[in-house]
């Protein structure tokens, strides 16, 4: 059974946007921001690119709500886990001293 009612957006246009965002993220890294702000910017740009791929290449834009829920809830859990562990791992003055790298 073929599904001829499925809409096909302009995939090449999406690909061009992805390339542009890649270029933007490469530039943004060389700007003199703090470590936390750089990580935040990296994650925001990565999120935008992922949303583009998910919405258009994975057709999430045209799918029903159940599939949207299955796709989005784990992402929310991931962000929640990150934020929840931040005080314990990053802002813990006693423990964080063990996480520095020894370089050879």
């Amino acid at each position, binding site marked *: *059974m*073929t*599904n*001829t009612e*499925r809409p*096909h957006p302009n*995939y*090449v246009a*999406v*690909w061009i946007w*992805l*390339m542009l965002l*890649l270029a933007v*993220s*490469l530039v943004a*890294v060389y700007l003199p921001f703090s*470590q*936390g702000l*750089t*990580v935040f910017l*990296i*994650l925001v*740009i*990565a999120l935008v*690119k*992922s949303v583009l*791929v*998910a919405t*258009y*290449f*994975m057709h999430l834009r045209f*799918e*029903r709500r*159940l*599939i949207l829920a*299955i*796709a989005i*809830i*784990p*992402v929310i*859990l*991931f962000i929640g*886990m*990150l934020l929840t*562990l*931040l005080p314990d*791992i*990053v802002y*813990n003055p006693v*423990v*964080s001293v063990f*996480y*520095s*790298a*020894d*370089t*050879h």
Partner: protein
Amino acid sequence: MNRTSITMENHEILQGRTDIGKIGMWWFLASEVMTFGGFLAVYILYRLASRGAWAETASHVSVLIGSINTVVLLTSSLTMIKSAEAVDNENRNSVRNWLGLTVLLGILFLLIKATEYFIEINHGFTPLTNPFWSFYFALTGLHGLHVLVGIIVNLILFVMACRGTLWPNIQQRVEFAGLYWHFVDIVWIFLFPLLYFQY
């Protein structure tokens, strides 16, 4: 019941069957988000906790090679979705060609990654060197294994497309393989800046 309404019912039944497979694939991808998400969250937290101490050792990854790999994988996502579009347009040669391109780009990604590993290990950076490199090899290695699985699936679909045996159930198979492949691409979209950029 007239003929039109029977056809409509059949269409809805088939539509329902398609949706169950799609839900199953998305469910699997959701579990993969938890796998990579957990791994990535720990890496991000430890790197932030190092207060920039990892930046020096992390500077030995090549942003250039990583960027090239990103372009390769993003383009392979485009070729994958073009093959799905060709399925809907019932263009059999197009489906085969786009699938073939996707497989080639996937193999190129892994070859570039292997070269990268070779260079880094030769410079003395192994998974045991320090926590950053443990994370780097583990994260890119796990991702690379996912890419390999995707290549194998796409290769099977490509061979089926060449032989013409793909067509009875084609739409679902290419679509679901595409969902997996796009997900692997999304994981790399996060891995690349988090591992390769200086912060």
